[in-house]
């Protein structure tokens, strides 16, 4: 098995476990933990891709709801400080990457020799 096959196999296993979690969570678990979901079924298929990709988080949150171990105050503490870090890192990273990309270019548009695509006007007339 090469590395590419191993990566794809890993993704298939991840998705397969996610499918099992989705089947159980969307049919049984959701009704136990969210009163707004009881009696609402049409929207549930929309959640399947989400469970497939973040099923460990789903299991973690499900466990917290079932055990009642959540600290309610945490729900109202948005990660604001990250805004400042993003505001500094994002422009810097964009600059560095674009400059690196431009530096790697082997030919610049100005270095491309002009090429006449049609006959000169006086000849064609």
């Amino acid at each position, binding site marked *: 098995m*090469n*590395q*590419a*096959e191993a*990566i*794809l196999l890993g993704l298939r296993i991840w998705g397969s476990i996610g499918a099992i979690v989705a089947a159980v969570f969307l049919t049984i678990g959701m009704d136990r*933990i*969210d*009163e*707004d*979901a*009881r*009696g*609402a079924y*049409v*929207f549930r298929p*929309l*959640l399947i*891709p*989400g469970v*497939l*990709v*973040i099923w460990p*988080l*789903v299991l973690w*949150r499900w466990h917290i709801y079932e055990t009642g171990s*959540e600290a*309610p*105050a*945490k*729900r*109202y*503490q*948005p*990660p*604001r400080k*990250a*805004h*400042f870090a*993003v*505001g*500094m*890192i*994002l*422009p*810097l*990273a*964009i*600059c560095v*990457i*674009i400059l*690196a*990309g*431009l530096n*790697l*270019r*082997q030919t610049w*548009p100005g270095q*491309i020799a002009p090429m006449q695509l049609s006959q000169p006007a006086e000849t064609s007339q």
Partner: protein
Amino acid sequence: MSVKYVPVQWNRNKWIYDGVMLAGVGLFLWIFLSASPSILSHERAINPQVHNARAFGACAFLMLTVILCIGPLARLDERFLPLLYNRRHFGVMTVFVALTHASYILDWYFAFSMSDKYEALLFANTSFGQTAGFPFEVFGIFALIVLIILAATSHDFWMKFLTPPVWKRIHYLIYPAYIAVVAHVSLGILQDQQNQGFTVLFIAGAAAVGITHLLAALHERRKAAEIAGTPGQWVDICDASEMTEGFAKIKLLPNGERVAVFLMDGQLSAISNACAHQNGPLGEGRILDCLVTCPWHGFQYDVRTGRSPAPFTEMVPTYNLRLDGTRVRVDVNANAPGTPVDPVPLPAARATA
């Protein structure tokens, strides 16, 4: 803000928003594919599949750029808030455009591969040890996976289930994804451009994202310094005469939380500044019919109880208030979400109408 979840919450404004967005996507693709081939380096003959791949790739980059500019612009100027209102649909649409780009690439360059086309994509270029010819595809794959995760977790159920702070942390992945997209373009198509048109457009878009985020970060830091409260159990908010009917004063408490103190019908009430939906700034909303409306997505709360009006069930913490002379002070310890607190009346002469 549903009582029972529905697949998509539509209303007139969202229809208009989505209509404008789809028209914009259609217009961009039409221009790219039909109207101006010379501007976009299509002088060299390319087949329709590659042309389509480039069109959808460029469209996805532009959409992601606009999406990322909306957040900081709304923080800098509230006139951009309407763009924030339905950004979720914008993001989901971007994923479909990006997937179309990836599909064209896979179905053209790897169609006749001896192995599975997905495997071929992963091992076609493994020159990770060199800068020239670096496998830029890996950046695109990473960004696409992130976009799929974000779109797949965009339903309101996920925000409630994961809680807004956890949901927000997951959605911060959009920043590494955008950096990956910039790398994907810089080390990919940018290496092969024969004229400056695309290069200038690409750099302008990425620069807009970088600059707006930098400005918004500096703006937020300045604002946080302005609203920082003094230490102690009862935090001074302002003088009663500074309160305006129907609006709030926001204060950053020593414990890092933000409180919004409202004046409604000449009486003071205090609730958490963080909306239960996406932690939007409730204190920047105004009171209509006894309810404050979140400026981000329109969730509403009674400022006396921290509860959404029936039949909705959202709740935010409330705070105890007192008046020391003319000074408005708030207890730093929040009450449990949805706890009713008796409003504190202002002397009529002090309240400004």
